[in-house]
């Protein structure tokens, strides 16, 4: 879609996280002029890239809330979305583990809540738990069992964004929204973007964005969660393992990731700044000690990476998806903390309904597609497929990331796709190059060289994740 200074967008979505991108994708099925704005240099740069990556079954939210409605619906829609978008997704059981009678009572209460939410779960005995998870602490007394799933959260976000971009949605990254003015029936963002609707999907910054139009109806508390990732060879669980939830959240969990690593975390620490994604020794110890209660034999050996993400905890316990009281064309999609990932397809569907009901004309766009192909991976190809891929594109035979077996072809494609990778991390999140046990020790310079070549920029300008995160410095 060709746009210029005078373009009037139908919708500007602020925030290119999983909510923003899934909404963009849903709305891109219609003949609408849409842009997505994010201050980060890539999509999926906030909570969407740093979370537990679980498609929660939907038993947990309080019945009657928006969370409960969208979680169950989202988990269902997710199955279709991941097929259409070719996103890594895996069905597996989730267990909420009880270690004493009191905790078992909580499990039973969760079971009742699940029934109210219409989500099928069952309680299982100690023996059944230990059959599924032999490594578990034998003190376990029972568990809540649910059919659950895991998904690649940034994979989903990037896929949705690529799909939306293919359907004509414009992405403006590294674009910080600092002013919103209202002129007749239009919003003007930062003096340069005119739009009829604004969708505020700005995650931890959504209250700030709301305040730009004078809407102070909610606040967001940034809550940091720290995680650790284990090497694939240290994966020792088959399901998502929760301890019983407390007021602070779902607690420390252990889960396989879609790539076969093991993810452990999070803690829940209220922080002052929404940018404070540092890891701390206290947080890491807390996570480790709690994880050790689930699997007593767990050691720190095999940890390859630590990270932290910020959850956007809203005032009031529910998702905030409604039009602003200040403006009927300003739609909040805020406070999307857990189970926000699981809910995201349903959030998009719900937003579509709200927009339709508000009078937005939605004429299906013939040229739009719901399908997006993933980058073909040499590591997942059979010998015959690999031979054919290499014949088609010889760069498939040049392996750049040794740990994850990622070829040059995959990296080059990640750079040249819609919303192409512009940094070493952007390549990493699209291909997994650098996500293995050497954490980019061998491949990051090669990836930087490929970025420099493909984007025709000096190597010294290549960044880790945009902005001033330059990897090298110029010689004096």
């Amino acid at each position: 879609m060709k746009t210029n200074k005078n373009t009037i967008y139908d919708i500007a979505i602020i925030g290119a996280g999983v909510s923003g991108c899934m909404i963009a994708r849903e709305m891109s099925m219609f003949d609408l002029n849409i842009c997505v704005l994010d201050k980060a240099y890539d999509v999926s740069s906030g909570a969407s890239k740093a979370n537990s990556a679980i498609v929660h079954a939907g038993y947990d939210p309080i019945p009657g809330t928006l969370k409960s409605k969208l979680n169950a619906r989202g988990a269902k829609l997710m199955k279709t979305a991941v097929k259409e978008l070719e996103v890594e997704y895996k069905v597996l059981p989730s267990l909420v583990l009880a270690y004493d009678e009191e905790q078992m009572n909580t499990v039973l209460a969760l079971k009742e809540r699940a029934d109210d939410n219409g989500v099928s779960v069952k309680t299982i005995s100690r023996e059944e738990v230990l059959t599924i998870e032999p490594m578990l602490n034998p003190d376990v007394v029972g568990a809540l069992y649910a059919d659950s799933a895991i998904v690649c959260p940034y994979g989903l976000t990037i896929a949705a964004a690529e799909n939306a971009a293919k359907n004509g949605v414009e992405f403006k990254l590294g674009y910080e929204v600092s002013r919103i003015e209202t002129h007749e029936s239009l919003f003007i963002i930062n003096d340069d973007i005119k739009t009829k609707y604004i969708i505020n999907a700005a995650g931890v910054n959504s209250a700030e964005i709301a305040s730009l139009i004078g809407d102070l109806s909610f606040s967001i508390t940034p809550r940091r969660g720290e995680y650790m990732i284990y090497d694939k060879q240290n994966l020792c669980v088959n399901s998502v393992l929760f301890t019983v939830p407390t007021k602070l959240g779902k607690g420390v969990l252990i889960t396989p990731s879609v790539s076969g690593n093991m993810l452990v975390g999070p803690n829940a620490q209220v922080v002052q700044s929404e940018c404070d994604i540092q890891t701390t020794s206290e947080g890491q110890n807390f996570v480790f000690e709690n994880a050790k209660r689930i699997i007593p034999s767990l050691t720190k050996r095999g940890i390859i990476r630590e990270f932290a993400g910020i959850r956007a905890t809203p005032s009031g316990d529910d998702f905030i998806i409604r039009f602003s009281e200040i403006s009927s064309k300003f739609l909040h999609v805020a406070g999307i903390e857990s189970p926000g990932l699981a809910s995201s397809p349903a959030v998009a569907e719900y937003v579509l309904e709200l927009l339709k009901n508000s009078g937005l004309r939605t004429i299906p766009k013939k040229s739009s597609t719901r399908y997006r192909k993933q980058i073909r991976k040499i590591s997942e190809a059979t010998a015959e497929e690999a031979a054919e891929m290499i014949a088609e594109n010889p760069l498939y035979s040049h392996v750049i990331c040794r740990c994850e077996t990622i070829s040059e072809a995959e990296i080059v494609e990640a750079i040249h796709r819609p919303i192409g990778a512009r940094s070493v991390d952007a390549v990493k999140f699209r291909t997994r190059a650098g996500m293995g046990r050497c954490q980019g020790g061998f491949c990051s310079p090669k990836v930087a060289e490929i970025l420099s070549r493909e984007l025709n920029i000096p190597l010294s300008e290549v960044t880790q994740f945009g902005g001033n995160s330059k990897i090298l410095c110029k010689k004096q």
Partner: protein
Amino acid sequence: MNLNKSLVVVGGGPAGLAAAIAAKENGINDVIILERGSCLGGILNQCIHSGFGLHAFGEELTGPEYAGRYEEKAEKLKVDYLTDTMVLSVSHDKTVIAVSKEKGLLIIKAEAVVLATGCRERTRGAINIPGTRPAGVFTAGTAQYYINMIGNHVGKKAVILGSGDIGLIMARRLMLEGAKVEMVLELLPYSNGLGRNIAQCLEDFDIPLMLSHTVIGVSGKERLEGVTIAKVDDRLLPIPGTEQFIECDTLLLSVGLIPENEIATGAGVELSPITGGAVVNENLETNIEGVFACGNALHVHDLVDYVSDEAARAGKSAAAYLNGDKKESSQYKTIITKNGVRYCVPQKIGTLTPEIPLFFRVATPSQGSTILIYADGNVVYKKREAYLTPSEMQMVKLSDETCKKLNEAKEITVELNTK
């Protein structure tokens, strides 16, 4: 492309080169080296400092020179090799699947395989340094690649964590590139580097070596802005109140090497939890018949000279296996290591001969300890060492007579007497 080969050597670094040369010299013509890099020589190519070859050649060579000696020899012997070729898997029946920039997909049916895949560096994640995650935190080897291989500059003001040889060498390298190295930190109360490197890389450049110190925090949003360091106690835990903020734009980590054994694992090779490399017998053969391991993929060495020596034995063993004159050792005994001996390679022996050295490492530094080897509880080897340190690999060669005693014994033990 489908091929049949007598011997496939995975890796064309110093270990792979020496193994392939030895195999060829021992009558195996049909050898091929598969190297993932764009040229032979492995990590030596970026080690442009000198200090290699003192044992092997009696002279001081740079890394590329040392590799060059072996490359020339391989060339002369017409050892076949492919670069830019990544082995994806080796199956239990020794089918090697690789992708090659030049040849595309390769499926090689091998009769024997030597794994010489080298090692990788431990990372920030592995040692769990808290803080933000900005650009400017490198492993020493990655920084070395940027500087020595592609002529770039990683930063202006650096702190280095880890005083192993790579950390020391990189401290000097950064100074020569015009950067300022604020300090080299070492978690342990002693350095793991060679004495000559401490003198030539730190003392000559007035770089402070801070023992019993570590990095406890990384700061900076986009590019590194500084690190918080602290002194550590006897249990290596940071001592509260000793924290100091050091402004820097670069943090280099030289915090250990780990053998790379993904291909070995895929083939079903048994690994040692202590070395991270394969469990091998005196022929450097793994639990899979005809699959051998050597070099830093087997266990991390201090000197490349020892890598070449060990790898040549692996090549020779592979040749013997292929020539059918391998001595059958029906009974392998696991060498028991205790009292300060962390590991011993080989881990198992059937028939030991005087030319096969035992390599081991001690757990802690000690003075005046005695290395003891027992056969069924009787001391068969005894040597007092003035100074032993975990950073120095110990090599013991045994006499004919001692070997005989060990070969006849049911139980072999290596230990340290620190009295």
